[in-house]
């Protein structure tokens, strides 16, 4: 069956999960028509990009058992690669591809070097080294302001086809204008879908199964004759490449690349949270997690603000509910889910259906 081929035989295996995934898929596929308005479309595009970003991270964390703090670095390289290229060359497709190529090569080189350098040692070593490298990269990006635009980042024009002013057809379809913004959205959506299916294929291939064997018992995998360093480094490179592509998509969508939207540690935390809450070691967790998380981020914070305002008289409580303390609750949620739901939402759902 086609579906079987597309999903690489890895079905959700839970009725509720299937329904959830279908809902997310339809929601995203028809977002411009179902949820009109710039904000809603922005949320949908962000979900698309984060699904890919988180899924590629899960390839490392969930499938290979490597903790990396450099994922946002690769994401940022993608965004900056496209952004800076468009900024300096001008809004052409050539610039997009040039920027993308350079970004991919840089990511690949960095992933290879970091991987070969530190993956032979313990997971902990790798976590520390990626943390150091990523933070140095973030500092570099914000300090080399002549080149990167510093803290402000860079806004840039995109090719004609993707500009909001561009109209493919004059008529409106179901009350929605077929303009450049819509085309960009579908570019993001389709690329994200393709990348996700690609990752699904990878984790269900023999290569993916070796990665899982390494995660379970690297000593034994080595004894079985697998070069664990090679496999880990490959996974690292693949994950970096996909993150770079996700970054490029985000840059095209936002028409902006800057440290806050790509390199910041907050985004790294978001990724970690989504993986853990969605479910480590299952790519569907990335879909469910990203959708829930981005929705909550965009709409729950408003709720927190209301709560905080209502409690303004009680000083400490008001502070606790202040929208800026969003991260506090995420942190608590994160710690609790690592303890109590190490398999995340998807793990829970699958466990129940068995």
């Amino acid at each position, binding site marked *: 069956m086609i579906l079987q081929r597309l999903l690489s035989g890895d079905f959700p295996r839970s009725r509720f999960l299937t329904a959830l995934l279908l809902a997310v898929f339809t929601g995203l596929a028809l977002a411009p028509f179902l949820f009109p308005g710039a904000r809603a479309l922005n949320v949908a595009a962000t979900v698309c990009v984060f699904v890919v970003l988180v899924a590629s991270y899960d390839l490392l*964390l969930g499938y290979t*058992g490597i*903790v990396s703090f450099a994922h946002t670095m690769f994401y940022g390289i993608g965004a900056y690669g496209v952004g800076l290229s468009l900024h300096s060359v001008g809004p052409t497709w050539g610039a997009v591809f040039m920027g993308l190529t350079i970004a991919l090569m840089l990511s690949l080189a960095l992933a290879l070097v970091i991987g070969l*350098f530190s993956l032979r040692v*313990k*997971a*902990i*070593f790798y*976590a*520390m*080294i990626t*943390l*150091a*490298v990523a*933070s*140095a990269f973030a*500092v*570099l990006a914000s*300090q*080399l302001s002549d080149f990167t635009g510093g803290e402000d980042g860079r806004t840039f024009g995109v090719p004609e086809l993707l500009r909001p002013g561009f109209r493919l057809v004059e008529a409106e379809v179901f009350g929605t204008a077929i303009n450049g913004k819509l085309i960009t959205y579908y570019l993001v959506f389709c690329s994200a879908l393709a990348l996700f299916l690609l990752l699904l294929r990878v984790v269900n291939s023999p290569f993916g199964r070796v990665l899982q064997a390494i995660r379970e018992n690297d000593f034994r995998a080595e004894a079985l004759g697998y070069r664990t360093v090679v496999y880990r480094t490959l996974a690292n490179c693949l994950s970096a490449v996909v993150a770079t592509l996700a970054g490029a998509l985000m840059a095209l969508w936002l028409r902006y690349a800057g440290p806050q939207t790509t390199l910041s*540690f907050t985004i790294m*935390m978001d990724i*970690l949270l989504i993986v*853990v809450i969605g479910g480590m070691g299952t790519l569907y967790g990335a879909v469910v997690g990203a959708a829930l998380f981005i929705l909550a981020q965009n709409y729950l914070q408003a709720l927190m603000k209301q709560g905080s305002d209502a409690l303004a008289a009680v000083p*400490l409580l008001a*502070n*606790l509910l202040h929208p*800026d*303390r969003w*991260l*506090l609750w*995420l*942190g*608590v949620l*994160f*710690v609790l889910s*690592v*303890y109590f739901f*190490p398999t995340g939402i998807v793990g829970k759902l699958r466990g129940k259906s068995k």
Partner: protein
Amino acid sequence: MTTTPPAATADAELPRLRLDTPPLLVLPILALLALPLIGSFPTWVTLTVAGLAMGMMIFIMASGLTLVFGLMDVLNFGHGAFVSVGAFTATLVLLPMQGWMQADSVLMNLTALGLAIALAMLVTGALGWAFERIIVMPVYGQHLKQILITMGGMIVAEQMIHVVWGPDQIPLPLPTSFRGVILVGDAAIEKYRLIAVAVGLVVFAAMFLVLNRTKVGLLIRAGVENGEMVEALGYRIRRLFVVVFVAGSALAGLGGVLWGLYKETLTAAMGADIMVLVFIVIIIGGLGSVGGCFIGALLVALVANYTGFLAPKIALVSNILLMVAILLWRPQGLYPVAKR
């Protein structure tokens, strides 16, 4: 930089004392090489003292972390929280005692500061104890969860600082008698940096004495090398570990106060920011080695100060370059800890 010490031969009837000196020589060599590059002796002195001061503070913050790792194979990514909490706790004493701090009396200044440090260490020590109980203990031996959970713990702690102390950074002026510079020849040296160096040396010496002269210290060193054998001799390694964890947290708190005064402003993220340097330091030193941590801290800080002056753009990544260079020379760090 390629002179590795002669390997101790196995069959030697007379055991040879093997003193691993090359790492010790790196520091003076680095300082001497920097002198002609910088060109001016007074500037060099200023930079070197600044580097030593910064290095001492990093050492104070990092030492506990490296021991905690050595003893139980636990890497606490939330260690930075103790740094921030320590610094912010100090304000509970320092802000009400502003008068004492600004008074032109060394004694009053010292009293206020001493009280602040004592409170900060007490609070971070207690917090460390709770952190070990609640956050770390359930995930012994599970590296992946450990990294995730301690990271989560740090986020929560950092956010709680915001809840308690508000979202803004807090200015923390130096006490009067610590301000200003001392002129040595043409070189201007900030008083506070000398104090930081002195405190760092005292902490290092105290730690050295404890680790070499007391039974607990010996047990800690033995435990870093072979925890199972320490247990087989009848000692509870977990108890040792809690002691080290609490002491390390309290030291991080002390480091936080010193660092906050050095920067003269406090932000909740200061701990997380400095953690990057701390990690680099303990990797360079060799995970689990206090001596390596000391040299690593000084090395990182000196390199940061020298390159900051010579080539500010490179300074941003100087730590990484230094780490790469050291690891190429000694893949396990300057003083690899013998394990089982």
